């Protein structure tokens, strides 16, 4: 009788679960029949000197994340379009209000032959928030709403209180502090990878050395010479190794873009970035090997919105006038010339599921924008008789300098504004922005996961990354509502509209990644805006 009651309860429970057992095919190197594969299946990728720690919970730079994503695997990977596809997990269930996710792990092995268990993920995630690990990305778990993560990072709770537990070896349950319909999209980030406890306990800080490291990814570490190269070989224990084609991956450190191009031409690397300003010429010379693809980042000017700002910037009319007078088309077409697109709002237009808001300025002609800007400026009491002087800070770089100079000129000619420019080290700029110790500052943001909140949460008055210091109660409420909304686009659009009206930031352009890639490399995920790629999905043809 008792058993019967439990079974009935269980059945009701199952019925209540919005079961989302994904059956999508796993992404792997999909080689069309009849393709003549090259004998040399070595993929050589150029990186900067920033391969810093091949530890999933300590990785922070983009290039390091690329290496780590070959050595380890999360619950879900991303396909060529940025959609989640099963990785270490085969499927998941989620409760009705998107706060409890249950992942079902596949039968997979670590590179030393040990089984990959739910406990390995619990350990990896606890390790990420453990104050002793001191991971820079420890905040990522709080960002994606894992229960108690912020308190554990702050040392107020033990790591065992983290909202993740192993129900059994193959079942992982994650509890979130708020409704998070997009949670599965955050799992390709290395902070949320599994970690091999036995190996880390045995070798301590030395566990990532080639002779010690154990991973569950499609490749294993063969050599690591920081500042020179990282070499990976196929992991025969990887569950999908049979479908892998690339045998070896080399990450070669070449800091200089022009040297990178020379070595690409010589066939020493398969992919390299296009040096600034050379995209049009290279596209004309090598149209089949020169690419410009959307990148998940937005370039913008931060405006100091706090009490420390000069009086002029406290005027909404002045902020709007300055924003309108920036001719984005000139910046993307004449200055950058690399396939970037003008930005009038913050969230990247390629964000999955995001509907672009209607920003009035976006559909105006530049002549109309300029006329409106002059009008606003006069109304605010500034003009030839009462010129405005402002200061702009940016981190030292040719491209940033060009943009600052061009915008300064536009403001001078159209509005009579004198803009003084000051360049500095990135670390100093970052600190000054953070402390609102500026008037106008260069800024840029790249999404951490493919959902609009990765951009818009910066407008939250409590956000650590809110460099403007902008506090708007309506925006805070909309962002809180979006978390539990069935269609958060409604809230997101309103936030963008308020931001376009108040101008705490002046969006300038959406990034593009411009690069050269050898024509014999196939399977590259050009349409993954986060530029997440896995060598296991690539192959080389004759």
């Amino acid at each position, binding site marked *: 009788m008792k058993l019967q009651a439990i079974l009935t309860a269980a059945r009701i429970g199952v019925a209540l679960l919005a079961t989302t057992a994904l059956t999508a095919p796993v992404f792997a190197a999909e080689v069309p029949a009849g393709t003549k594969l090259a004998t040399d299946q070595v993929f050589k990728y150029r990186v900067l000197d920033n391969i810093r720690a091949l530890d999933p919970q300590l990785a922070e730079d983009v290039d390091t994340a690329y290496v780590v994503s070959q050595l380890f695997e999360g619950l879900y990977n991303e396909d060529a379009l940025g959609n989640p596809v099963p990785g270490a997990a085969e499927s998941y269930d989620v409760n009705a209000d998107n706060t409890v996710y249950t992942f079902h792990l596949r039968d997979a092995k670590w590179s030393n032959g040990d089984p990959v268990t739910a406990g390995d993920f619990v350990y990896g995630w606890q390790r990420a928030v453990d*104050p002793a690990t001191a991971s820079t990305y420890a*905040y990522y778990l709080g960002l994606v709403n894992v229960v108690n993560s912020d308190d554990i990072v702050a040392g107020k709770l033990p790591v065992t209180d983290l909202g993740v537990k192993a129900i059994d070896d193959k079942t992982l349950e994650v509890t979130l502090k708020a409704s998070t319909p997009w949670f599965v999209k955050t799992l390709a980030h290395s902070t949320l990878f599994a970690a091999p406890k036995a190996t880390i306990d045995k070798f301590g800080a030395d566990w990532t050395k080639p002779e010690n490291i154990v991973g569950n990814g499609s490749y294993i570490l063969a050599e690591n*010479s*920081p500042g020179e190269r990282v070499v990976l070989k196929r992991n025969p224990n990887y569950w999908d190794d049979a479908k892998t084609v690339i045998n070896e991956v080399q990450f070669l450190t070449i800091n200089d873009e022009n040297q990178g191009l020379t070595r690409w031409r010589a066939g020493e690397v398969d992919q390299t970035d296009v040096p600034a300003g050379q995209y049009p010429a290279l596209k004309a010379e090598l149209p089949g090997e020169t690419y410009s693809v959307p990148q998940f980042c937005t370039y913008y000017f931060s405006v100091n919105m706090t009490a420390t700002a000069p009086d002029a910037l406290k005027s909404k009319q002045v902020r709007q006038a300055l924003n309108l007078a920036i001719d984005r088309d000139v910046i993307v077409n004449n200055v950058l010339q690399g396939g970037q697109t003008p930005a009038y709002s913050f969230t990247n237009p390629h964000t999955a599921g995001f509907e672009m808001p209607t920003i009035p300025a976006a559909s105006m002609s530049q002549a109309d924008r300029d006329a409106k800007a002059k009008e606003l400026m006069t109304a605010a009491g500034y003009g030839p008789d009462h010129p405005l002087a402002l200061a702009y800070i940016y981190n030292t770089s040719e491209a940033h300098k060009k943009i600052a100079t061009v915008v300064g000129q536009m403001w001078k000619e159209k509005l009579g504004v004198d803009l003084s420019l000051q360049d500095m080290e990135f670390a100093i700029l970052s600190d000054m922005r953070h402390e609102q110790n500026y008037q106008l500052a260069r800024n840029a943001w790249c999404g951490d996961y493919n959902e609009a909140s990765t951009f818009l949460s910066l407008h939250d008055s409590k956000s650590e990354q809110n460099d403007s210091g902008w506090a708007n109660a309506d925006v805070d409420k909309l962002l809180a509502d979006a978390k539990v909304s069935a269609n958060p686009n409604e809230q997101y659009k309103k936030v963008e509209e308020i931001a376009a009206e108040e101008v705490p930031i002046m969006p300038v352009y959406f990034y593009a990644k411009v690069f050269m890639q050898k024509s014999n490399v196939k399977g590259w995920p050009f349409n993954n805006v986060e530029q997440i790629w896995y060598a296991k999905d690539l192959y080389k043809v004759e």
Partner: protein
Amino acid sequence: MLIFILKRLAIAIPTLLVLITVSFVLMKIAPGTPFSGDKAIPKEILANIYARYGLDKPEWQQLLEYIWNIVAHFDFGPSFKYKDRTVNEIIAQGFPVTFAYGTWSFLIATIVGISMGIIAAIRHNTLVDYFAVGITVGAQVAPTSSSRRFWFSCSRSGCAGFPAAAGTVGTGATSSCR
């Protein structure tokens, strides 16, 4: 001679200690942190990182511990940049390459230079002298960029046993959105 060497060494030690102290103070005065990145780090996390590297202790204590570890254990501590390596490991990676290049340059410069000098002295004011002095002065004034290119291509084709790809540990440029 031995006394001279010992004297020089004895002077070198306090000089190095002063240099360490001065560079330590300069690093502390400079704004920013070694951990500043694209994204602002929440203060709780920054506190954890500081604690891990002992940067939460008083500065005089940090300096004393740093110097003591070098003097007593020859341990330069952890790298703030390569988070899974120590400074000793980074030196161990680059030192053999630098040592090989240094040794070869020293040997070549000494042998070729002294030989040329002797020849030039013996055949004073002859074509041989002008030739020898010409080469020596030419090598002195040749821009390092061009000579580096020569030695680099030489090292890559493997001549003279130079190790390829000398330590290119460089500026530590950045990630995506800077």
